[in-house]
């Protein structure tokens, strides 16, 4: 399968199954399209000559020679040979390697767009006890087989409402990781309200990553991210985050924002966080909400959002040239050292290698399924009892959704988000098409940036 597109002055050709990325002149771009349509080289050559009347016979021959060379070396027109790899990772004895610990089913903010309904997940408020958290760590170790790297995310609600349990949980995990040959990687996701010097010191020592929630401009952030009295959080959280990030040095962090129908010009929020607040590691996600909500993104928003993603990619390239780069989570793509094909076709891991744990120790396939009784997998005390559900999630991969069959981006999304699919279509094996459209646009921009970066590197080499 081939995907061709033009962006920022580049003709880009992606060979989907080899994941090869090519940049071509107009002649080769059209030639590849003609061959991809099923034309023979002779037919394609005739048609190409008509389309490019200034092209010489030598130009045409060279073009098809280039195409043949890439085809022979397995970088163009490759076939899908990976279906059998899709089930490989998950068909092995189920190994759990990541837990999302909902240490607080409550929040000190009251953001109206929150998919977790202010941490209550449409259920009761509550805090996880240390005993439950400790048991969750043991459950993870017991069910992780030979996997060494184990991930635990402190999530909620707002996890810092239950900071003592976060600290004790890390202390406990560290005390047992060596004897079990494990390496725990902790992530803290916080709204910033309770970020103190103690939190900063602890997180910078213990957490592999911190995810800091901020939506961007003050008026945008404060539209939704308000306290229970309805007051905006921006003025309180921004100085906390700046202090946090400054103290973090070169350790991982993300400023994580949400955009909605009310700020489809979300690049202004990203640039505000970069230029006015000094953050460089940025993530901005489309809101996940009911289609009837006023904040829900609409079909009419799509062209605007596509343009925004292009503006962002081009501006990031400008910043790179100026020596002041910023990172956007969805444009981070490592073509040379990225995921192997097993990872690319295996699905996201929810309900199999990744589970969410509620404050009471109940297990769900991921944080977006919490408190949906149909999706309760078991609990950390007695283990998983819905093996049928685990098996269903095991079957979620690139090949399980017919809609994905024709999608060029499927090797970059691993089949998409089951929770979004459920909420959009009523079936975890459905497809959240709106999210797919945005994902494809982001991938086009990310790949274009790689092409531009390769060109910049070549220019620098030539100058040297």
């Amino acid at each position, binding site marked *: 399968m081939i995907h061709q597109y033009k962006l920022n002055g580049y003709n880009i050709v992606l060979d989907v199954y080899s994941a090869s990325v090519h940049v071509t002149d107009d002649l080769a771009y059209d030639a590849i399209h003609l061959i991809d349509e099923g034309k023979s080289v002779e037919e394609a050559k005739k048609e190409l000559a008509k389309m490019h009347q200034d092209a010489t016979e030598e130009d045409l021959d060279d073009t098809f020679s280039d195409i043949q060379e890439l085809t022979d070396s397995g970088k163009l027109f490759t076939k899908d040979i990976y279906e059998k790899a899709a089930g490989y990772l998950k068909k092995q004895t189920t190994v759990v390697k990541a837990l999302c610990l909902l240490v607080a089913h409550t929040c000190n903010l009251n953001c109206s767009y929150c998919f977790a309904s202010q941490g209550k997940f449409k259920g009761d408020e509550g805090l996880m006890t240390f005993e439950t958290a400790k048991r969750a760590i043991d459950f993870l170790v017991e069910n992780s087989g030979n996997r060494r790297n184990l991930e635990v995310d402190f999530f909620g609600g707002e996890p810092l409402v239950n900071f003592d349990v976060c600290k004790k949980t890390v202390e406990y995990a560290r005390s047992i990781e060596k004897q079990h040959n494990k390496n725990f990687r902790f992530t803290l996701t916080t709204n910033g309200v309770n970020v103190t010097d103690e939190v900063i010191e602890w997180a910078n020592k213990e957490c592999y990553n911190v995810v800091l929630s901020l939506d961007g401009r003050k008026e945008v952030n404060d539209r939704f991210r308000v306290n229970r009295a309805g007051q905006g959080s921006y003025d309180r959280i921004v100085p906390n985050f700046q202090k946090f990030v400054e103290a973090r040095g070169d350790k991982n962090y993300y400023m994580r924002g949400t955009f909605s129908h009310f700020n489809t010009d979300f690049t202004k929020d990203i640039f505000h966080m970069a230029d006015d607040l000094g953050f460089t590691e940025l993530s901005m996600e489309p809101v996940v909400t009911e289609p009837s909500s006023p904040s829900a993104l609409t079909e009419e928003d799509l062209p605007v959002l596509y343009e925004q993603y292009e503006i962002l990619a081009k501006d990031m390239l400008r910043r790179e040239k100026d020596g002041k780069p910023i990172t956007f989570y969805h444009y981070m793509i490592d073509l040379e050292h990225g995921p192997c094909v097993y990872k690319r076709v295996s699905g996201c891991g929810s309900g199999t290698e990744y589970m969410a744990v509620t404050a009471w120790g109940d297990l769900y396939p991921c944080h977006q399924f919490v408190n949906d009784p149909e999706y309760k997998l078991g609990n950390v005390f007695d283990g998983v009892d819905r093996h049928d559900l685990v098996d269903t999630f095991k079957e979620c991969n690139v090949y399980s959704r017919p809609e994905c069959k024709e999608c060029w981006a499927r090797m970059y999304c691993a089949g998409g*988000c089951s929770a979004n699919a459920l909420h959009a279509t009523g079936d975890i094996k459905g497809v959240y098409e709106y999210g797919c459209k945005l994902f494809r646009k982001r991938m086009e921009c990310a790949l274009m940036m790689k092409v531009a970066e390769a060109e910049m590197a070549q220019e620098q080499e030539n100058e040297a």
Partner: protein
Amino acid sequence: MKHIITLNTRDMKRSEEKGGCGECQTSCQSACKTSCGIANQQCENKNA
């Protein structure tokens, strides 16, 4: 090559032979939490 430049990318076919250790990050356990993408993840297998 006169008309096409090819970027360096990981050999998918070879990764089928050498990959699959499963040590990499779980897809959603990072910054997004509401969408799925694996393109931005690093391979943990230094020998693959």
